[in-house]
């Protein structure tokens, strides 16, 4: 029976850059949901939100678990709101679920600083009924386990990991192989096989106890007990060595990946020169801010005056008439003074001050009366008001000042605000780059290489120890087999009963063991067939004939002429990895949605177009998280032709705040 998982809606609160409560509606089965977002806006965080919602895990770069404290929205944290939440609505096997996960600060913690200051919580409702902890655990395991989630929720980094593994099947981790087999339903047989093996032990112990009771079989039983102990001891050692070898193997792989990343010098120097440009930009902004502050200081010296200028202008307007009169009178006074002086001169010298001729008696009389009039007029006082005089003096005092520069001051202050914001954003970008660069520190490479060498030596020693323990186990089991045969020959009926039980158990073990082999073969065949079907739809190379699978689920490309393609391009690797994932989906005991983050990043337009067209074939429900230059929106609409369910865009509000906006024309459903 195939179990069907359909995602309906996701609600997130303060998760990464998604401040407050935001919502994503998934496309109905048969359709695609596309979310567009530039880098560092929250695309990968959205994938993590979906992953967290389903399996309670947040994965960072290099597959390390991300910190809970760092996952909460930073702007909300600055406002005193810590933690985050996801709520997922989905259907599984005919039931409707509402699954809420989240993390919040512990009651006694006022200001959380790290993960230990938080507690996680989970709340699950099935068909309207709240589930208890045991039911929750059981249902969650059925819906999706962390091991199988990797085939439904994946990003470019994970896809690249598959590509590397497909290229080198020896590297295929046990974890991935087990995850693949889990998704295909193999564990039900391997689990039964393991239980039958345990049952064999139980029956052997029972037989041994019975054999000890009888005189004729007592010695054999004692000998058997000693060998059981040796067998248990050897198995324990083998298990420990194998566990340790797995751990060291994974550590070795992780060190190799780390070194490969560090060795990509081009990336490191690009980051460093990006950081240098940012530093220059910041210095330029700081210099400009300092210069503007100086301008403001100078302008502020006259601010007191500009504030009062309207009042003074008002006063001037009302006094302007008076001022005009006063000035006119002043001028007339000066002119009359001048004229009086000349007339008096003329009277004294009895000659005209203008033409210098001698004055007659009548002319002298006229001049005398003019002098009297002028003398009177010069004695008149100017009807000035103290304010007018002051105003004139004020004009004189302020005439050298520029007119109000308040608009210019305002503009300068606005510029300073904008530049401060730009500086803060640039500083944050630089901090991010510093973090990135230090994670690629060269001295880290030396330590990693030395670590790798040590690990490889430890692996060699462990492998030797493992071989010895396996030899010991084999010899012990041979001895036990011999003892068993001897016990059977002796013919004790009670012992014989247990022997029959043992034979039945062994037969069942053989049947299940063989069934495991056959199931794996059949599944590999099915996966190969389905992967080939998808691959041929996705590849642009007409000479590629099929895919061939090996026992580790590694896939090779076979040319039409039957030969294996030895070297594959990055694009081909990508397509093969996608084909494997699609085939596993098809053969899985759980039919579920696929969520892909930047799946087209390194592909050419030909492959991108083919993948877009085949999306509905990859899974029933597909959600894509892409950046705008990865696929053109118009092209996507045209290519998918009516199969787009919903579209969203992740929009930037600030460096630490993004919003998920439905796009226009988003009523495809």
């Amino acid at each position, binding site marked *: *029976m*195939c179990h069907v998982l359909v995602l309906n809606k996701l609600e997130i609160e303060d998760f990464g850059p998604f401040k407050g409560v935001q919502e994503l509606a998934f496309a109905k089965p048969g359709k695609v949901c596309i979310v567009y977002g530039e880098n560092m806006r929250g695309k990968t965080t959205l994938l993590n939100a979906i992953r967290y919602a389903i399996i309670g895990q947040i994965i960072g770069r290099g597959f390390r678990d991300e910190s809970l404290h760092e996952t909460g929205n930073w702007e909300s944290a600055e406002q005193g709101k810590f933690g985050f939440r996801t709520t997922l609505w989905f259907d599984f096997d005919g039931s409707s679920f509402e699954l809420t996960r989240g993390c919040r600060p512990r009651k006694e913690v006022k200001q959380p600083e790290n993960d230990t200051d938080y507690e996680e919580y989970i709340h699950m409702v099935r068909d309207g009924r709240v589930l208890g902890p045991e039911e929750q655990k059981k249902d969650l395991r059925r819906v999706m386990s962390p091991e199988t989630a990797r085939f439904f929720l994946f990003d470019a980094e994970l896809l690249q990991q598959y590509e590397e593994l497909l290229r080198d099947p020896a590297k295929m981790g046990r974890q991935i192989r087990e995850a693949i087999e889990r998704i*295909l*339903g193999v564990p*039900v*047989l391997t*689990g*039964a096989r393991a*239980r*039958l093996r*345990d*049952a064999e032990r*139980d*029956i052997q112990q029972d037989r041994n106890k019975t054999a000890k009771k009888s005189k004729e079989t007592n010695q054999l039983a004692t000998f058997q007990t000693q060998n059981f102990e040796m067998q248990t001891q050897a198995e324990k050692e083998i298990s420990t060595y194998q566990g340790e070898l797995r751990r060291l193997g994974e550590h070795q792989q992780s060190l190799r990946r780390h070194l490969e990343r560090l060795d990509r010098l081009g990336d490191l120097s690009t980051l460093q020169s990006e950081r240098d440009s940012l530093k220059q930009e910041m210095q330029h902004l700081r210099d400009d801010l300092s210069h503007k502050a100086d301008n403001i200081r100078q302008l502020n010296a006259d601010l007191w005056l500009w504030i009062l200028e309207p009042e003074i202008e008002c006063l001037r307007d009302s006094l302007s008439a008076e001022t005009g009169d006063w000035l006119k009178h002043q001028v007339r006074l000066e002119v009359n003074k001048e004229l009086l002086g000349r007339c008096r001169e003329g009277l004294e010298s009895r000659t005209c001050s203008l033409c210098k001729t001698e004055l007659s008696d009548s002319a002298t009389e006229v001049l005398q009366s003019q002098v009297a009039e002028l003398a009177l007029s010069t004695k008149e006082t100017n009807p000035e008001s103290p304010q007018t005089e002051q105003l004139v003096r004020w004009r004189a005092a302020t005439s050298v000042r520029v007119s109000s520069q308040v608009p210019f001051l305002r503009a300068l202050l606005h510029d300073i605000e904008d530049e401060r914001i730009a500086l803060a954003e640039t500083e944050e970008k630089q901090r991010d780059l510093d973090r990135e660069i230090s994670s690629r520190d060269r001295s880290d490479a030396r330590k990693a290489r030395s670590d790798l060498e040590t690990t490889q030596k430890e692996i060699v020693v462990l492998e030797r120890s493992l071989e010895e323990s396996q030899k010991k186990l084999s010899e012990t089991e041979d001895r036990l087999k011999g003892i068993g045969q001897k016990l059977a020959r002796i013919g004790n*009926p*009670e012992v*014989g*009963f247990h022997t*029959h*039980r043992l034979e*039945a*158990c062994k*037969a*069942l073990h*053989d*049947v*299940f063991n*063989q*069934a495991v082999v*056959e*199931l794996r073969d*059949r*599944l590999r065949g*099915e996966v190969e067939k389905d992967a080939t079907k998808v691959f041929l739809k996705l590849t642009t190379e007409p000479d590629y004939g099929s895919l061939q699978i090996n026992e580790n689920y590694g896939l090779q490309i076979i040319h039409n002429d039957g030969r294996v393609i030895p070297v594959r391009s990055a694009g081909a690797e990508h397509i093969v990895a996608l084909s494997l994932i699609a085939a596993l989906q*098809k*053969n*899985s*005991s759980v*039919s579920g949605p696929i969520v892909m983050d930047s799946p087209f990043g390194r592909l050419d337009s030909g492959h991108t177009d083919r993948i877009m067209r085949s999306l509905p074939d990859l899974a029933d429900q597909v959600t894509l998280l892409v950046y705008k230059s990865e696929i053109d929106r118009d092209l996507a609409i045209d290519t998918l032709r009516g199969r787009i369910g919903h579209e969203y865009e992740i929009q930037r509000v600030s460096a630490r705040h993004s919003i998920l906006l439905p796009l226009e024309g988003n009523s495809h459903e």
Partner: protein
Amino acid sequence: MMNSRKSIEEILARVRATMHPEVPQHLVREILRIQNDIPDNDSEARRQLLVAIDEFVKDKGVSRAGTE
């Protein structure tokens, strides 16, 4: 899509018939049921498994007293 449950049953039936026809099909089905229904509870699963085997052995006429 391959129906893994059906395939598993089919494979088990065929392998049993070929390798160990003396083991009845119902016993194989019972082992499969135990594994499907009790994936997490080891001790209960082992107990039920041993009960199933013991019943088969008794059905064959084998008892602790040794009659066959």
